[in-house]
Every structure is written in structure tokens, then in C-alpha cells.
């Protein structure tokens, strides 16, 4: 049985280490919709992939968090990227592979992955109709 002993060792290694930092307003926030709609369409592996990729790549200025229903259930899993001073980017129908690509291209290299973005997907999926319906 794996015990908590290992945690003590981790704690000792981390003590006195600089770089233990908490999230602040200059961080890029990556938000995953985790309501029933998101979970049903596969948000859990997407969220876990984002967390482990961000850890692995040591992206210290990126925080991955979750939120409830974003309101576009048919496009779930949805990942939103908030960069300070920039417009929000919404990625739709994300899976773990796309999530890795988003980390690699958008979060590391600063290039948005246009093909997974909402406005791109919406051209094919009747987003305009949906918005009209929603406003009724």
C-alpha cells in the first residue's frame, strides 16, 4: 500500500525552494467547463491533460481551473484561454490530443490554434442560428 511517507519527502525537498508562487493577475488562465454537459462530452480527460501538460512543461504563469456550464453545451468540451490584456479565446470540442496542441502552440508559442476556435467551428455548425434561438 502506498503511504503518505513520500509526501514528507516531497515537503522537505520543496522547503526553502524559491518559485513557490501563487496565481496572480498577470497569469494566463485556462478554464475548462465541467458541468454535466462538459463532463458528458469528455471534459475530465481534457482537464487532466491540461494540468499535466502545464506541469510537465513547467508553465509557471499558467493556471488551469474549472468552471460550470458555459452555455454552449453542444460545443463541449470547451476550453477558454484568458490572457491578460487580450480577448478571450474559446476552443470547442476539445479532446486530450487537441488540448496538448493548444498547450504547445498557444500557451508556449503564442500562436492561437484557429481551427479549434469557436468562430471557426461555428461557421460549419450553425452557431448563428443557435445565438438567434438563445436570444428569443
Amino acid at each position: 500500500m502506498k503511504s503518505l511517507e513520500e509526501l514528507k519527502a516531497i515537503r522537505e525537498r520543496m522547503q526553502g525552494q524559491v518559485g513557490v508562487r501563487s496565481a496572480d493577475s498577470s497569469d494566463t488562465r485556462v478554464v475548462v467547463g465541467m458541468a454535466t454537459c462538459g463532463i458528458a462530452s469528455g471534459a475530465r480527460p481534457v482537464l487532466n491533460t491540461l494540468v499535466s501538460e502545464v506541469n510537465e512543461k513547467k508553465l509557471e504563469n499558467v493556471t488551469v481551473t474549472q468552471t460550470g456550464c458555459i452555455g454552449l453545451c453542444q460545443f463541449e468540451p470547451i476550453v477558454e484561454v484568458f490572457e491578460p490584456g487580450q480577448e478571450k479565446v474559446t476552443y470547442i470540442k476539445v479532446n486530450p490530443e487537441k488540448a496538448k496542441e493548444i498547450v504547445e502552440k498557444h500557451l508556449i508559442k503564442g500562436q492561437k490554434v484557429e481551427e479549434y476556435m469557436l468562430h471557426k467551428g461555428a461557421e460549419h455548425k450553425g452557431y448563428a442560428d443557435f445565438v438567434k434561438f438563445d436570444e428569443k
Partner: protein
Amino acid sequence: MLPEISLNILDVAENSIVADASLIKIMVETDTSENKLKVTIEDDGCGMNEEQVASVVDPFFTSRTTRKVGLGIPFFKQAAELTGGFLNVDSEVGVGTKVEAVFLTDSIDCMPLGNICDTIFTLVTMNSHIDFVYEYKVDDKGFVLDTREMKEILGDVGFDNPEVSDFIRNYLYENEAEVKGM
């Protein structure tokens, strides 16, 4: 429908988070001789009044204001009842809520438990301000993950520390495999 029991657990536990719980207990107990799987999700959140408890299994009831449907509990109830099992909700305002579901695992309609380790990992690491007690049991073998114990050891080192989150993931996977005798 959510295709795994563990995804239903994740979804229902999100309700406890919204209810402002500070401690959430999740138990997953398998009784192989009786072919039963019991799932309990208990929180100390804001609770619900009798009327809300009665309507929570109704898909057209939800506490959110964005839309008029809420499918979390109805999905979970339907999944349990399809197997011949049941779902119970007990709640008291100001005390908390307990959701209990029993699945009969020999039913052809019983969905797989699925990746419960990932569900617990997601809940624990994404909500480090909340304490979780997770208990996994198969007959008389089992293990417990108690974030209060972990936080006591870790002090100011958070669950967002990559080494800590790796530890939590491995703790879940390795102990589950051992309980299952794998």
C-alpha cells in the same frame, strides 16, 4: 447519459462544491458476493429544504439561472434504477446533503464504474480549498485518501505543486490496483 459511474460521481460532487461544502466524503464500495456497488457522496454544504430534495430528481428542476434543466442527479438516479438499484437523497438546510446510490452490478444495464481515480484526482486537485475523504472498498479490502492528512504533512506546499499532484495520482492508481488484487 454520462457513460461511466465515475463521471456521475464527478458531476454530483460538483453540486457539493457549489453548495459551499468544506468537507466532501465519497465512498465507493463493491460487494462482490451480493453483486452490489454502493456510491455515497456526503457534504457539509448549505443543504436543501424538503421541497428542493423532492424536486432534485426532476430534470426540470435546477438551482442555476442560466437554463431550466438540471440533469446531474436525474442521470445518476436513472443509471442506478436501470440496474434494479436505487438513489436516495437526504438533506438538511445548514447541515449538508447525502446522496446514496446502489447499483446491481450483475445487471446488463449496469454501466462500468470507469476511471474513478481520475474523478477523485480532478476533484481533489482542482478544489484544494475543500477537504475530501475518499474511501474505496472491494469486500473487506480498501484504502482511504484524506486530504486533511495530506495538508497537515504538506504545510504551505499546495496540491498544484507538480510533484504533489503526481503523488496524489499515483496514490489513487496504485492503491486501487492493490485493493483489486492486480
